[in-house]
């Protein structure tokens, strides 16, 4: 599918090469604790940024999930959702809720439920993946064919590819440019269409472990998005790398003027309905034609049903593995343990088998072509972001995590 990339990207500039040579203090950047601890219930470690552990050694996400099972009245929360929908529902045929949606199981579940169960008129909005996989594109269209209106926004690939490369070198995360689309573009679209309600899927900080203070939050505003999703790098950073306001037009947050004329609220569906990712897989498979990965398990994990739409995904997870020692299998196993689908013992076995799997040859070739990095520069980027506290080099030149979950 990726063979349509016809343009060879101009190689890294001197400024980017210089950035490759800088040392990074990953621990300081992310506030990582020096000694590694693993949750007693799931397989996540305290190296996930912002996650906290209680004195029994249980992570904040597991504690939150325990609360979800035992202390939250979902009947009351659903009543709140009905009230929210009643407040925003329109009867003149216009869209009344914007659902940022990749076409993946979670967002399709949210959009489909809002439409069929709560009588809303959703507009789904998709921010294009870096490069669509075949299955990603299939599932994207499946949502449309399931009866959902959609806008697909695709940034200028020549701009986006360069941003992706710079994000890899300077931030250690090829996905930051993608995340801008998730954070800011929904606000712009909601404002343009006069939609007062944006419904995101889950509050990642609460569901997967992050800032525990956000657990009871119904939603975020733009200031919070910058703190949680953009790792302290605001969009102004890009002008330093020669990106003009034309280049950044699709990414930028709304202006004060654009926001002032529209009252927009942004909520998490996971506040109102008990968030259970595998349940959403079944829902999407049974109701909207969603299909899992046709090639079996995704790279670096055992699962087939999550995060399927971007050829570059394996590098997003791999850089997280380099920085935090936590890969994709860890993420999948952690939430499946919390969802009661697998045991911790199962999770440990899966993590030890799949977590450290590097992206395969095909994905590597795509990533190099997409970003315009050469092999050496990619190696240097990975070396730059490999947390020396967590990794040790072996005699054959390869690297191994010093500690893994047990």
């Amino acid at each position, binding site marked *: 599918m990726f063979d349509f990339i016809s343009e060879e990207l101009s190689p890294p500039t001197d400024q980017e090469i210089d950035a490759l040579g800088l040392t990074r203090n990953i621990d300081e950047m992310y506030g990582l604790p020096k000694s590694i601890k693993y949750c007693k219930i799931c397989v996540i470690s305290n190296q996930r940024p912002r996650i906290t552990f209680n004195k029994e050694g249980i992570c904040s996400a597991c504690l939150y999930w325990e609360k979800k099972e035992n202390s939250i009245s979902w009947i009351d929360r659903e009543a709140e959702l009905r009230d929210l929908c009643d407040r925003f529902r329109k009867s003149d045929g216009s869209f009344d809720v914007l659902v940022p949606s990749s076409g993946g199981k979670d967002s399709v579940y949210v959009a489909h439920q809002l439409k069929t169960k709560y009588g809303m008129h959703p507009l789904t909005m998709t921010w294009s993946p870096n490069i669509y996989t075949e299955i990603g594109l299939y599932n994207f269209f499946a949502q449309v064919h399931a009866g959902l209106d959609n806008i697909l926004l695709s940034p200028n690939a020549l701009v986006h590819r360069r941003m992706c490369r710079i994000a890899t070198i300077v931030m250690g995360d090829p996905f930051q440019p993608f995340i801008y689309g998730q954070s800011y573009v929904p606000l712009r679209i909601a404002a343009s269409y006069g939609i007062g309600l944006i419904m995101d899927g889950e509050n990642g900080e609460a569901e997967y472990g992050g800032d525990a203070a956000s657990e009871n939050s119904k939603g975020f505003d733009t200031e919070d998005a910058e703190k949680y999703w953009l790792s302290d790098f605001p969009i102004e950073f890009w002008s330093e790398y020669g990106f003009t306001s034309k280049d950044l037009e699709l990414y930028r947050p709304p202006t004060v003027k654009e926001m002032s004329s529209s009252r927009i609220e942004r909520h998490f569906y996971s506040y109102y309905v008990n968030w259970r990712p*595998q*349940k959403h*897989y*079944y829902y999407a*498979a*049974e109701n909207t034609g969603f*299909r*899992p990965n*046709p*090639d*079996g*398990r995704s790279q670096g994990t*055992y*699962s*087939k*049903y999550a995060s399927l739409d971007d050829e570059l995904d394996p590098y997003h997870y791999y850089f997280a593995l380099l920085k935090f020692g936590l890969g994709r299998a860890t993420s999948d196993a952690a939430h*499946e343990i919390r969802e009661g*689908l*697998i045991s911790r013992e*199962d999770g440990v*076995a*899966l993590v030890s*088998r799949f977590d450290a799997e590097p992206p395969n040859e095909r994905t590597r070739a795509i990533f190099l072509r997409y970003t315009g990095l050469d092999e050496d520069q990619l190696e240097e980027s990975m070396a730059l972001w490999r947390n020396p506290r967590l990794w040790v080099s072996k005699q054959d030149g390869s690297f191994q995590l010093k500690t893994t979950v047990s």
Partner: protein
Amino acid sequence: MTFRIIGRLDVKPPNLVKGIQLEGFRVAGDAKNLANRYYDLGIDELSYQDVVASLYDRSPDFSLIQEIFTGIYIPVTVGGGIRTLNDVDNVMSIGADKICLNSAALERPSLLSEISGSIGQQAVVLAIEAKRKNGSWVAMTHTGRETTEWDVAEWVECAQSYGVGEIVLTSVDNDGSQKGFDLDLINYVSPGCEVPLIAHGGAGSLQDIADAASAGADAVMMASVLHYSKLSISEIKLFLGGLKIETRI
């Protein structure tokens, strides 16, 4: 030979689960209760499949299998995580009639002849997880989590040369959908299949079963359509009888 109706029990020990397209661990009932119920209601055979043993690199759960099938006197096939002759011995000694393998057979096809030599070819069931790809079907392993380069028809030919008693042909695409078997798949495999062919994946209606028979299946294996009580065993057998497809009474 009668057309067999086989109940499939996917187990993630200790739970009976049911996925869609070989993904998902949603609990679908109690394995022992359902095994007993199907036995009482006239199912011809039962097939136990440990859906995580290969993935977790674990042995089958022998005590669980024994517990589930105590008091059940129809043929029982056990599969999932069977890798060695020792595994085969253990499974047969707790009372299984047939063993089923997939991942281990694709890794080393000669294992099929070793096992056939030990317990008899008729007791060796080859499971194939067939996934539509590029106009044909490829064989997958590890409950649809790893893919191979094997074209399914070619693998059938190869495996038969090593010795198999019957083949369970699972459609990964249709699994759990209740929208019908992959008839194109059955049509593709059936001509080259010299042993009984069991269609699996997608059963939703009585007509689906008849269609599978017309396409060349000698038996059908079903899970969700039975677990969720969409069809009953007696109505299936009555329906097939009406079409002059002979089943075990």
